[in-house]
């Protein structure tokens, strides 16, 4: 993770060479340590609820190895996406993005194993497959949290003046980019709740009225956060001439992302196996409210 080479935005190519020539080729060790510290803090901030959730430990040995492998691969792709579109260095090459992602995943796995061992969930008595399963299932969230923490929890680099910071913060993002970050943010926020039995239980007894209310509430919350509440960073993503159609269309798009993330996570944790259509839909909508917060508020904080 190179330190101190944040440039003035990707559409400003002349300025890009200046920070690179002004600094020594290697970033200082102290700076790297600070970045790792922020990464660890971010990783734990997002994943401690999961590390302390019983269902997560159980999925570590209930899920088949191929499903765990799929989980790890999807997480890695999400990490690449996040580091590319919302990470600290908007000018980063794919090589840098890949290297950062590998590092973050490594840190995530180590932190996950360490915490589960300290909590006594992983011991020397259990089978290796169980230990690896438990570590991987929690480690992926830690890894995404590490990435978010590194990028978002830091103060702007010392060599960056205020105007540059402001420009970086104000950098507009394209709609597809927003959807990618919304997807990741929804996973981070809803990931703590998706594996719990509570969602399956809600799916069992939510009535039609409850479901309609949940859908409307989710949409209203998204619209409020994105367009009305003047949320941190919301302004730069809103088009100049805002129409009601834009508000409704974009809110619906982000809600669609939230529902997609919810359904994917529930499928992944085996909640759809043997379940009827109504049970699947109800559980998805119940989790969808949580994912909506991720896709709206979480996304703005991550980007």
């Amino acid at each position, binding site marked *: *993770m*190179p330190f101190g*080479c944040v440039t003035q935005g990707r559409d400003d190519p002349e300025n890009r060479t200046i920070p*690179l020539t002004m600094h020594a*080729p*290697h*970033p*200082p*060790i102290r700076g*790297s*340590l600070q970045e*790792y510290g922020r990464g660890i803090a971010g990783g734990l901030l997002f994943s401690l609820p999961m590390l302390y959730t019983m269902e997560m430990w*159980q999925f570590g*040995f*209930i899920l*088949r*190895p*191929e499903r*765990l*492998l799929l989980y*790890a*691969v999807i997480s890695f792709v999400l990490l690449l996406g996040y580091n590319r579109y919302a990470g600290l260095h908007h000018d980063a*090459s794919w*090589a*840098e993005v890949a*290297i950062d992602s*590998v*590092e*973050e*995943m*490594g*840190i995530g*796995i*180590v932190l996950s194993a360490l915490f589960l061992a300290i909590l006594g969930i992983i011991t020397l*008595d*259990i*089978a*290796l*497959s*169980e230990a*690896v399963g438990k*570590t*991987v299932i929690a480690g992926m969230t830690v890894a995404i949290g590490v990435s978010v923490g590194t990028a978002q929890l830091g103060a702007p680099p010392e060599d960056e003046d205020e105007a540059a910071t402001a420009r970086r913060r104000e950098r507009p993002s394209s709609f597809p980019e927003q959807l990618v970050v919304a997807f990741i943010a929804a996973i981070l926020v809803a990931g703590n709740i998706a594996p719990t039995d509570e969602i399956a239980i809600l799916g069992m007894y939510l009535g039609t009225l409850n479901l309609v209310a949940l859908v409307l509430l989710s949409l209203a919350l998204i619209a409020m956060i994105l367009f009305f509440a003047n949320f941190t960073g919301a302004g730069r993503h809103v088009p100049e001439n805002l129409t009601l159609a834009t508000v409704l269309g974009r809110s619906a798009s982000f809600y669609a992302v939230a529902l997609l993330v919810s359904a994917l996570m529930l499928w992944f944790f*085996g909640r759809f196996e043997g379940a009827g259509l109504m049970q699947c839909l109800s559980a998805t909508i119940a989790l969808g409210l949580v994912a909506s917060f991720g896709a709206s508020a979480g996304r703005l904080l991550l980007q």
Partner: protein
Amino acid sequence: MVRKNALEWSIFAVSGVLLLLVFGYLGYHALTSEDEPAEIEIEVGVAHPQGGRYILPVSLHNRGGQSVEDVEIEISLLQGGVTTETAAITMPFLPRLSTREGSVFFDSDPAQADEIETLVIGYIVP
């Protein structure tokens, strides 16, 4: 251009190796382990007296490829072919290729019994 110091390169190297190991292990397991049902084996330890009764440690082994929930087992003491005492426990989880420990209590000394019979009553597939 990738600019990194020695610390960052070493963390990257360690992470890379760790990822290869984890992905490799999961991939290997996915290819080699078939989705065979749980295969539960009960192993009985040595009983010792406790509070006027006898405590008998039991180990549950799952040698199959499937993790199971709520495994109910029954241990009986037999005297001359007749069951004299029965005890049961339920194990909340028994992961694939794993062992879980528990104990059952008896009024009479299991060491004096002719035979100790172990029985798996059933389990739930999660």
